[in-house]
């Protein structure tokens, strides 16, 4: 449940990167994500998906990551998004 294995974490990081919650890996260095950065990314993903914001790759979060979806990222870098408005 709250103790994902290396495979889940690796797949989760790939998912979070693909959909804009983590910055893309730098092809020139082996930059690591900090644990805090990863936790914040999971929280943002959970908030976006309407899940409880735990910051943990729990069962519900992993299940949501496996749901069919659109290929485009959820979070677009601010430089590209000029007029974001929330009600």
């Amino acid at each position, binding site marked *: 449940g709250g103790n994902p*294995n*290396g*495979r889940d*974490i*690796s*797949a989760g*990081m*790939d998912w979070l*990167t*693909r*959909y*804009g919650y983590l910055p*893309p*890996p*730098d*092809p*020139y*260095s*082996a*930059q*690591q*994500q900090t644990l805090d950065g990863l936790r914040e990314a999971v929280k943002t993903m959970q*908030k*976006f*998906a*309407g899940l409880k914001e735990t910051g943990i790759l729990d069962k519900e979060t992993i299940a*949501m990551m496996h*749901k*069919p*979806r*659109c*290929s*485009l*990222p*959820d979070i*677009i870098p601010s430089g*590209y*998004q*000029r*007029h*974001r*408005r*929330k*009600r």
Partner: protein
Amino acid sequence: YAVSGSVWQKRDLSWRVESFPISLSQEITKQLIESALLAWSRESNLRFYRTTAEDADLRVSFLGGPHGDGYPFDGPGGTLGHAFFPGIGASAGATHMDADESWTYNEATGTDLFAVAVHEFGHSLGLTHSSAENSIMKPYYQGTVGKHQNYRLPPDDVEGIQALYGKLSPSLDATHDSITTAHLTLFSYTGRKIVHPAEKAPPAPTQRFVPPRGPTYRPGLPHPDRCSAHFDAVSSIRGEVFFFKNRYFWRVQATKQLVSLNPAHLGHFWRGLPPDLPRVDTVYERGNDSKIVFIAGTNYWVFKDTVVEPGYPRSLTDFGLDTDGVDGAFVWKHNKKTYFFQHNRYWRFDEQHGRMDPGYPRDSNLWLGLPPDVDDVISWTDGHTYFFKGAQYWMFRDGNVEAEPDSPHSITLNWMYCAVANPPEPTQLPEGRDQRGCTCHC
């Protein structure tokens, strides 16, 4: 709702379906696409008309697997579709659906094409993903939305499209109603083209270029695929495992987590190796001072952290090795000695005294169960020794010199987290040819 920052500079947009799914007829597919567009035009000043012209503004295709835009499809489930935001460029207005989905409509089973198309056209018109509860622009597939003829956009999406293109003006309302009627009558499709008043004046193209988003907006470098790589070297450094292939490497942390599925560039992390060095043969962390030794051919370099020490490269003869190179090297935790492997022989080096131990080389089959010509060896933080060759690895528990009976295991499955356990054998075929000998023209 959230917007991308780019919009169509015109209100009359042409569309066409360029390819079709196998699970729905062409007629039904066109009806559903047209109905999905109608969902957006019903609430805004936008109008859509079908065309057979190749330069249609909105182009719908059903494609499978990788198709050249950086958003590969993944078979049934997973990713269903994507669309490119408005702008100038070959991709703008392109809407791609995964051809491997079981496309249906108004059914509990399969994937509802109408629902996905409404979502993707939201992107084509300039909207991005929304976290709003009922929005069609939520990124996750939410199932069928029922009869497409009766579908109306949720309020959040209505506000979004009206913020971009304005509300449906009363002067156009009557025209729109007639168009709506015309569209609906096409549900018994006749194949005739809708002639829209706007067709008389060719629409002006937008002047703003918005690059495609996602994996493609970062400049990509050609790099090896971790799932099909046979690694040049595998090394345990500072508790992590490094997998080297050509001029790239992957890192696996002590928790067995891959730092990134994409490799990092060798020369920009390990500073001081020759820029034209095509690959390394082995790397190991020295037992006496924790410096890191890179070996390629008959040369070696010593690194302090990630920077090479002055005076390198030097020759392997410094170790007393009179060979044309080594396949693998590692420091065995159980005696702190450094072992070098080449073909079916191995040597033992005493780092403390800087000399090769007498009685070596020996036959590597003293490591029971080990094949000849290994790619590399590590002694990891879990106390076990791992030998790597091709797509497989052999585990020697603790200080044992006999492989575990269930060895070998798959590197790609257990270290690289790939779906396929056994990648194809390396081929001598030139670039651009696959394993079957087919020439790729992509």
